[in-house]
């Protein structure tokens, strides 16, 4: 899966990104992962978490669809970005080194990378 490999390498090349994975948002199928992606857990876990939170938000009355999740630990941010498409969405999950990036910038960059994926 050569284009997929190249796309994820690009993501890994962004400042502060130490790990990345592209996963199916519905089934959790891991399409590709790179770098220190172990912190993200399995694709199935990411998908289950995203669906759970998305469902709960809907039940609580939130408008629209879930866009992203951020989990922050001492050294890292984990950013899971929903990549909508015509069909089942994807999840672009990245692990960021807090010393090398700030969250606002990272969210902006992952949004851009997510767009590039589908281009």
């Amino acid at each position: 899966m050569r284009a997929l490999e190249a796309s994820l390498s690009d993501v890994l090349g962004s400042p502060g990104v130490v790990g990345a994975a592209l996963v199916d948002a519905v089934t959790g199928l891991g399409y590709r992962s790179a770098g220190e992606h172990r912190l993200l857990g399995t694709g199935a876990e990411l998908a289950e978490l995203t669906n759970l939170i998305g469902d709960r938000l809907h039940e609580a009355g939130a408008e629209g669809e879930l866009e992203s999740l951020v989990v922050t630990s001492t050294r890292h941010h984990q950013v899971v970005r929903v990549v909508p498409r015509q069909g089942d969405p994807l999840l672009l999950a990245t692990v960021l080194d807090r010393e090398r990036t700030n969250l606002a910038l990272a969210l902006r960059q992952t949004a851009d990378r997510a767009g590039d994926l589908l281009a």
Partner: protein
Amino acid sequence: MTLRSHDSARPVPPAARNVPALLLALRRAGFTGSVTVSSAPGGTIHLEQGLVTAIETPGAPTAETLLLKSRRVGEADWAAAETAAAAARAGDAPGPWGGGLGAALVAQGSIGATELETVCAAAVFDGAFALVLSPPGSWQVAEAAAPAGIALRPGIEPQRLFEETAQRVALLTRLWGPPGELARTRIRPAAQAESRALRIPDRYREILIAATGRRTARDIGFALGRGLFAVLLDLARMDARHLLHREPARPATGVPGVAPRTPPSGPPPAGTGPLPRRTPGVRGPGGQSGPGGPARPGGPAAVSDEPPNGHRAERTETTENTEKSAP
């Protein structure tokens, strides 16, 4: 690489107890060709260097169906890509995609290469998942068979397919029940799911619209251009929120529900019998269409009692017990 037995020049597929063992052996041999499995339903597994590049089975949508039915790629674009790929095949060696169809789709801008790879990969895993739900069957190995319409290159390791498939079966069993049974259960929305005020993701709403009561999860996947496993997972999640009604399985077949025939007491009069007949030359007040006038039926035409899709909302609930959404 060709597999050959010692005594004959004809290639011999490796002995294997079952399809997974066969696929592992074919991977070791770097086999290119196809494995066709006969079952209910069966399918064809396409291999290149022993890696799985595509799976075709009635049990799950192919990448083509996923793209077309979800409207990700339009029919006209698809046809244009097929034409371009056929023209290219006449010339160069095959590119990174089976038959050049993928390359043509990407080249004409219908879809990006990365996105197409994810769809093709998803279809392979979905096909494998569908095949394990079928009863075991016989198989035939064909070397260097025609490549599938659209294929993923390089393909997926069989071992990875087995692991993912096993995890999928375990997950669904835990969340909902035996996947084989679930994939064949006919689904429709529960009464409370028909409310427009319900706050649910768009994806669930689409499934509810597609769940006519006649369709199984597999049928819904084909209708929406979504994978079998994806639909099953969403249905499991929806069931947990009491959005679904599962039609009870029909009783075992083999016994037609017809009363014993009493033999007629004389030769049957001409013109009667079980089939409707046309009466020549007579036209009814309704102006029934067709030559020969209206039917003089031997019996009323029997139509199944399920209403057309458009009238689903008007139908009254006829089942006596609302099936609880127990896992």
